[in-house]
């Protein structure tokens, strides 16, 4: 499989075409916008957290297939997780997309298996796309932990 096919796995292309939870969220406990000013990608992420549990996540916005599919799959992956597990999942995801997934301790924890998210492993061959894959995640973290922060601009 070429680098490119590795990157654009069927699952990613499918989520890009039909993103899940692609809507605003009424009664959200937090919201943040993720923007990459260098490429213009922009997403809004909403989250509803209750008693330390991520009850609902949604997003809207536009960007490349990687960023959009990542946002979509993120919403399904963290829904129902505790905030702590969502944080850990992001750390794990970050390791995978940057090609630094060497921490076997994490792997043994069933709550932290990436599942579908492992489709993004191909990103590590295209370092510039790491920002795309993590854009919505950064916004999610802001929405959960600093629900009043608003815009979260990432730059390389």
């Amino acid at each position: 499989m070429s680098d490119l096919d590795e990157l654009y796995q069927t699952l990613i292309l499918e989520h890009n075409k039909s993103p899940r939870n692609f809507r605003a969220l009424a009664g959200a406990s937090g919201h943040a916008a993720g923007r990459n000013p260098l490429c213009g990608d922009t997403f809004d992420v909403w989250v509803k957290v209750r008693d330390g549990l991520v009850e609902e996540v949604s997003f809207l916005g536009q960007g490349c297939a990687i960023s959009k599919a990542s946002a979509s799959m993120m919403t399904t992956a963290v829904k129902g997780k505790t905030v702590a597990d969502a944080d850990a999942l992001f750390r794990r995801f970050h390791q995978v997309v940057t090609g630094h997934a060497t921490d076997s301790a994490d792997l043994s924890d069933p709550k932290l298996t990436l599942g579908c998210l492992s489709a993004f492993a191909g990103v590590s061959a295209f370092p510039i796309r790491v920002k795309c894959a993590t854009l919505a995640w950064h916004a999610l973290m802001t929405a959960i932990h600093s629900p009043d922060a608003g815009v979260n601009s990432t730059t390389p």
Partner: protein
Amino acid sequence: MSRSVMSASADRALAWDVDRVRADFPALRRSVRGHPLAYLDNAATALKPESVIAGVAEYYTQVSANVARGVHTPSQEATARFEAVRERVAAFIGAASPAEVVFTAGTTAGLNLVAQSYGAAMLEPGDEILVTEIEHHSNLVPWHLVAARTGAVVRGVPLTEDLTLDLDRLEQMLSDRVRVVAVCHASNVLGTVLPIKQIAAMAHRRGAVVVVDGAQAIPHLPVRVGDLGCDFYAFSAHKLFGPTGLGILWGRTELLAKMPPWQGGGGMIAQVELTGSTYAPPPMRFEAGTPPIAEVYGLGAALDYLDGWDRVAATRYEDALADEAAERLAGLSGVTVYRPRGPRVSVVTFTVADIHPHDIGTALDAKGVAVRAGHHCAQPLMRRLGVPATVRVSFAPYNSPADIDALITGVGHAQRVFGA
């Protein structure tokens, strides 16, 4: 490759020996992800001929002294070369005198210099600065900053349907409050060449000065600032096959003479007391601190190198490549090409239905084709085009028809991957 394209490139080969030119550019020898590099990102930065790389190294290897302040021989050599390149640049752009040539850190620095020295000194609350919808951020944000500082107002002149500047609207917007008209000579996204001479005449009738961002024109067009009739002209060495870290700001003697310094430091002073200073005449007044010396050596080598080109033939060649690329791209289903009517440089912008430009960029990179994907530091133009981003291919005289083949194949491959 189609028949007509092949014969077109055969024609071109008579006037332009691209293989010989390619041999001068060592970066073309590299491969990317197992493919030969097809470098179609020349508008971002140009590749460098061997002689430019050697020119930079010559300074470090044989001279390595500071300029203008030393009585010793290496410093004299550096100073002499530095000033000789200034003269060379003056001749290259048709400046009235080498003293009109200010060395800066780049186009961006040159435009900021004009905004923060000329602009901050001359602009008053309510004064207007006209920019265009096609400008690069480097010719927008400096004006936003100086407007915030002075109370002046920035207004944008729109484009026509043809993606050229709407000169009628410009004429309407040219009120007596307009002090500065800041325009690019050529667009980095569409390649549109603006009619500077005409714009300058219109602006001067209203007493406004004309600041030209020449970053994308200088590698392609013969620039004679006197003929253009503008007041300032900024460009970067790195887009002209020269080194990074160096730009040129040309300004009219009369205007430079009345401008206050922008940066303070060594080399730009007349007299310094602890609590105040007086300043040297231009161009020194605007060159505070140790300048980019090795870079000036490199620029000298780049201008020498360009002397070896028939530049008219070079431009005709790269324009033909751009036309060919535009035509073949437009022939692909789902591809939209954004091309202005009228004069343009060899830059082609397009989008592909249902595939984001970044994904196209990555797909092309996987085939060794280097293009730019994004807003190209031209967000207002993206809004005008109604797209968040585009893919841009930009040509230089060392590009080959094979680069276009790789591009077309790569776009097709992306479409297959995406099922688009």
